[in-house]
């Protein structure tokens, strides 16, 4: 009964736009994965360190982003346990704001994050990457490292344009190493009392090339309160509409990422 080899899934919450709910999703989904019994890692790639803060960890990586990228096996030494069983964090560091430059020193910059993650795959079922809002060398490297991009979309016209941009990238075959990275969108901060939101949601769900997950995360006071509680909503308000929506989102995503069958 040798333990079966792990199939680790790397999930990046990504959007070119800022403030759309990437961090909130990464933190809550990672917590749900760990709660289900999966060893889970969240790497906070954003120098703003929002998810590091939410897990109460000091945003500091000795040697900075450069050091992390350079040596194989370096990352493990910087991982911190969160307060939640099975959920660990690779913290953000202020130096990540120059991660592009650090990546650019390697022969294949876009392959670098995947290489850094490779030795960690044996330890986790899920690895979440919480990305800064940008399109850069870092996002290219994220596309190569991730098995799936999870893209929060606020169902207001302006921000769905951002999603369409990404879709174009995907269609052009530019996402992922062989264009194999799955892209899932979900609605974030959705307000079903607003006709505009409803209309945008309906329209986007009809676009063929876009996989929009069924669960939408509602606008919610609890999600906003995460900053004060410094915990996932799934911890301090597990019965809230937002927590329930994250759970639904997670089970759908998990199903879609499961190996064939």
């Amino acid at each position: 009964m040798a333990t079966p080899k792990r199939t680790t899934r790397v999930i990046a919450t990504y959007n070119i736009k800022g403030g759309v709910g990437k961090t909130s999703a990464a933190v809550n989904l990672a917590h749900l994965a760990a709660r289900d019994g999966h060893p889970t890692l969240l790497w906070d790639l954003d120098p703003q360190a929002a998810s590091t803060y939410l897990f109460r960890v000091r945003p500091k990586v000795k040697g900075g982003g450069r050091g992390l990228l350079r040596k194989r096996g370096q990352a493990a030494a910087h991982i911190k346990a969160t307060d939640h069983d099975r959920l660990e964090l690779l913290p953000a560091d202020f130096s990540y704001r120059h991660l592009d430059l650090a990546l650019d020193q390697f022969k294949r910059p876009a392959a670098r994050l995947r290489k850094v993650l490779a030795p960690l795959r044996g330890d986790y079922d899920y690895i979440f990457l919480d990305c800064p809002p940008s399109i850069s060398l870092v996002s290219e490297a994220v596309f190569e490292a991730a098995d799936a991009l999870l893209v929060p979309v606020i169902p207001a016209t302006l921000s769905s344009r951002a999603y369409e941009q990404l879709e174009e990238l995907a269609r052009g075959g530019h996402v992922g190493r062989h264009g194999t990275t799955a892209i899932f969108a979900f609605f974030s901060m959705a307000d079903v009392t607003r006709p505009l939101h409803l209309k945008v949601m309906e329209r986007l769900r009809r676009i063929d090339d876009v996989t929009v997950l069924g669960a939408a995360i509602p606008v919610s006071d609890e999600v906003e309160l995460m900053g004060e509680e410094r915990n996932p909503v799934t911890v301090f308000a597990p019965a809230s509409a937002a927590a329930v929506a994250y759970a639904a989102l997670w089970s759908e995503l998990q199903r879609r990422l499961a190996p064939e069958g």
Partner: protein
Amino acid sequence: MTARGDLVTFDWPLDAVRSALADRYSAISSGGAGIALRDELDKLVCRVTVRAVPGDSFWLALEPLRGYGDDAERIRQRLLAAGFQTEEAWKSARVALDPSERADVAVARVLRRLLEIQDANLPGSLADADVEFLHDYRVAIRRARSVLREMRGVFVPDELEPVRADLKWLQDRTSATRDLDVYLEEFHALRARAPLTMRASLEPIEPLLRERRARARAEMERALIGDRALALRARWGELLGRLERSEHTPGPDAARPVGALAGERIRRVHRRMVRMGRAITPASPPAEYHELRKRGKELRYLLELFGEPLFDPAVVRPLVRALKGLQDVLGLHQDREVQIEMLRDLGQELVGRPGGADALMAIGSLIDRLEADAVEARGRFAASFAEFASEAQGKLVAQAFR
């Protein structure tokens, strides 16, 4: 928390822990005997569990969170300064030794430490607070028996043999309970690895194990607080006292330098293991693997108790590592054999019970898998033994331990 009459009283040390750490960490009860320590960001950095209370001091187990080793070390230092004892105080049997001191004096110090550990874990073993108490209690006795066997030349047989018999008797009283503790743990692991369709069929096993454990425990508790155990403890403490005061009848090795004696024993046990291991083939019966593993434990104890404090760490450490690799393979092999035996044995008792037939079927297919595991472990034996028994390693051992 009071467990089982007045045998054990855990007075809650939360306030004392809190004030020892007040300037840097907050301490919050996390239920039971647990305390959560948080840093200034209110981040959990270490869990603390109250483990034992010998006399007036609290013995605390620290469980640092990953990435917070520095905090844990700081916390440990503060707690020690505040009069608490932490794990190494009762886990680590190591005492300082000087290679040139008399063997009887050095052996007395090692045995005294082991007796302290044994005593400290008795209340917890009786209270059934955590299976680790009984485990540590047994390891302390096994180590002491091992020291008595390997260093027997320090004693005269008339004084030694009764103590050895006593300690064997004491350890035997605890074996059934420990086995069932392990069975229960293993059963949970086995069930988790069984296919979903089989899990329900395995359900009747757990109550059976629990019944057996309760019976074994009751018997063990009676023995551990019975007259014979008390008299034995007194006799053993008394001999140890005489040994410490050099009032015992010295055996042939008593006045030799401990370094020379320990080195000789380590070389001999190592040589013996190499010889035994070379004779083992994939077709050898499980008993031969088991015998080798027992020798391996003996060597491990010798290395930990005498090798590390007395000899060059650059030699001791790689040897311990190679030995550990070998013991892991042998342990896996034996665990599987033991699990198979346990399942067969349970099967007989399950026959007459409701759900018994299904359980037997499930047991059958589990046994098949476990046998495959045991075969795999045998396959790995050759490589790990080769590392342990390599010529280079042998030369190093021959040179270093003298």
